[in-house]
């Protein structure tokens, strides 16, 4: 049947894919950043299979509000339906495949195809076909021609995710403790809303180079030296290269970056929220690191110490202490679209809200003083991966390998504490090989590595 369900034989065998990253030595084969066949497998085996961030509930307050997002390169319409639920629909007409919705966001009563006028309800049902009784002579079963829906749509703390795989684990289990800690960071100061305006730009880099960079607290001092010199941030107050805390979770979830020492957190745990707020304001270093008591529920007794960068596998980065989220959307092996969502607590006082929004504008996004200097590192690393000889030179993810240990803390939350290193990057690529090598969820579950314990 010509319905696109016949499997396409992978050009890469599973063993060859697994060999692209060697967790024992930390060497990464740079073809992962350039190979077109691997990219096609990523679309199938990571993006269509995994859970993808769609939107936050605050972006779609009313019935008919919609926001366009992507699952890999598949464009989807996220829309608040008549019943109040958020539907995720493939943005491709069931007639000839045209995009139904060509705006980025807006308000709709239904979605009408601009090609022949097929009309779909907010739940994706096909409700109108011009010429149904005349040209089709009544011989068209509309009930079978609704828009294709994401197999599952679920939310956590108001953040909606979707997967095209019906056999995917629940979002709760997919996120696991580490992913939930990451999203918990965003809500650690109260219920949040997304500020109007998603910054979007295209960088000619492989999406994974953008992702592995978020765990990289080694590059900040050098790549972003000019932002430090300009005075927009104080590297010494932010980096803490000797107090790092990395958390690695199932399915490739990870958090990397600085963490408060346990003794410091114990001191904070004894404070009232008012005392914490005053303490947080006392230094730039403490501001986003000292959280109210409720944060412990969301991030766990160890996770609450993190001031690092969570990544919700595969491509959602949480930064600025939880006030920004950046999606890295693949656009071919050597292009990535970056979407910046800025998130603030709903009850944040207006002056503080303005400060957070300004900081987000000034630090990240294409004009941000930090972000400006990242793109070219990523695009030049990607470009070199296309050269026949250059790509044979591996990428060295060697830092800290064999020198650290996973400690088990309160509630069983595990972390690697110590010097700045590349544990999270290694975990990301190791998980990536397992995702891409496995043909389906059952095989992934049977073959994936559990998060490391003991010496790492």
């Amino acid at each position, binding site marked *: 049947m010509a319905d696109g369900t016949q499997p396409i034989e992978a050009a890469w065998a599973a063993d060859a894919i697994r060999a692209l990253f060697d967790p024992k030595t930390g060497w990464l084969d740079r073809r992962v950043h350039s190979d077109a066949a691997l990219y096609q497998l990523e679309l199938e085996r990571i993006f269509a299979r995994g859970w993808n961030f769609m939107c936050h509930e605050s972006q779609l307050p009313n019935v008919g509000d919609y926001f366009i997002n992507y699952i890999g390169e598949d464009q989807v319409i996220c829309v608040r339906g008549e019943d109040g639920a958020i539907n995720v629909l493939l943005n491709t007409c069931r007639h000839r495949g045209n995009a139904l919705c*060509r*705006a*980025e*966001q*807006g*308000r709709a009563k239904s979605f009408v195809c601009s090609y022949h006028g097929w009309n779909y309800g907010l739940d994706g049902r096909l409700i109108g076909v011009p010429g149904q009784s005349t040209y089709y002579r009544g011989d068209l079963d509309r009930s079978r021609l609704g828009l294709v829906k994401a197999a599952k749509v679920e939310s956590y703390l108001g953040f909606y995710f979707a997967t095209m795989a019906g056999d995917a684990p629940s979002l709760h289990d997919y996120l696991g403790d580490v992913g939930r800690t990451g999203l918990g960071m965003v809500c650690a100061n109260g219920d949040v809303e997304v*500020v*109007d*305006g*998603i*910054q*979007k*730009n*295209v*960088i*000619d880099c492989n999406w994974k180079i953008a992702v592995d960079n978020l765990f990289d607290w080694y590059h900040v001092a*050098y*790549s972003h*030296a*000019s*932002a430090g*010199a*300009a*005075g*927009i941030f104080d590297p010494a107050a932010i980096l803490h290269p000797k107090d790092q805390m990395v958390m690695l979770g199932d399915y490739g979830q990870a958090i990397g970056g600085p963490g408060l020492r346990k003794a410091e957190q114990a001191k904070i745990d004894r404070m009232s929220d008012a005392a914490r707020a005053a303490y947080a304001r006392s230094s730039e270093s403490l501001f986003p690191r000292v959280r109210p008591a409720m944060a412990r529920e969301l991030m766990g007794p160890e996770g609450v110490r993190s001031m690092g960068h969570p990544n919700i596998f595969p491509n959602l980065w949480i930064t600025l202490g939880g006030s920004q989220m950046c999606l890295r959307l693949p656009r071919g092996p050597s292009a990535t*679209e970056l979407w*910046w969502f*800025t998130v603030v607590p709903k009850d944040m006082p207006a002056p503080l809200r*303005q400060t957070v*929004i*300004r900081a*987000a*504008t*000034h630090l990240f*996004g*294409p*004009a941000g*003083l930090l*972000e*400006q*200097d990242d*793109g*070219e*590192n990523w*695009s030049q690393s990607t470009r070199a991966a296309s050269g026949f000889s250059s790509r044979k030179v591996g990428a060295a993810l060697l830092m800290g390998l064999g020198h650290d240990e996973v400690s088990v803390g309160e509630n069983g939350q595990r972390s690697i504490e110590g010097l700045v290193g590349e544990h999270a990057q290694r975990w990301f690529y190791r998980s990536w090989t397992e995702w891409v090598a496995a043909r389906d969820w059952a095989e992934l579950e049977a073959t994936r590595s559990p998060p490391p314990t003991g010496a790492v």
Partner: protein
Amino acid sequence: MDAATEIRPNARPAGPDLAERMLLQYEVEQFLYAEAALLDARQYREWLGLLADDIHYWMPIRRTVTLSDLDLEFTKPGAMAYFDDDRGMLEMRVKKLEAGSAWSEDPPSRSRHFVSNVRILEVAEGEITVEVAFHLYRTRLNTEVGGWVGRRVDRLRRVEGGFRLAMRHIFLDQTVIPTTNMSTLF
């Protein structure tokens, strides 16, 4: 001032007579061209010297929306933007460029600021509001070519010896920014 201003091709502006208006048009254009030339010549310190202390330099986010949702096309003041700068922030941008470690501008970009369709919208109390169309072409490294096109609403304040830029609101025609960054000043 984010919506398109009223456009009346045949309106005879009130106020100064034609000769005075031509003179003002000339003065404003020459200022804008020279200001653009400073940026193209990478004379950022000199460019800062043209800014009023209370300048607001702002580029909202533009979105592709349907005709019925045009009220959503640009983000509003106070929401997210690409630039939302005061003088201090612009000084920081220049300081960054001068730091010797601004890798995104070393090797430096080559830029060309084209300014055209200069229309004086309002003259009031020593301030002139002017709308222009711009094309900021940027190329860098060997083959990187990009740029930004849009409409700009500037406010020039008359001071002794010329003008100071008191407002620059930049309305791009692009929605998804097609460049690796925006490390160039508009």
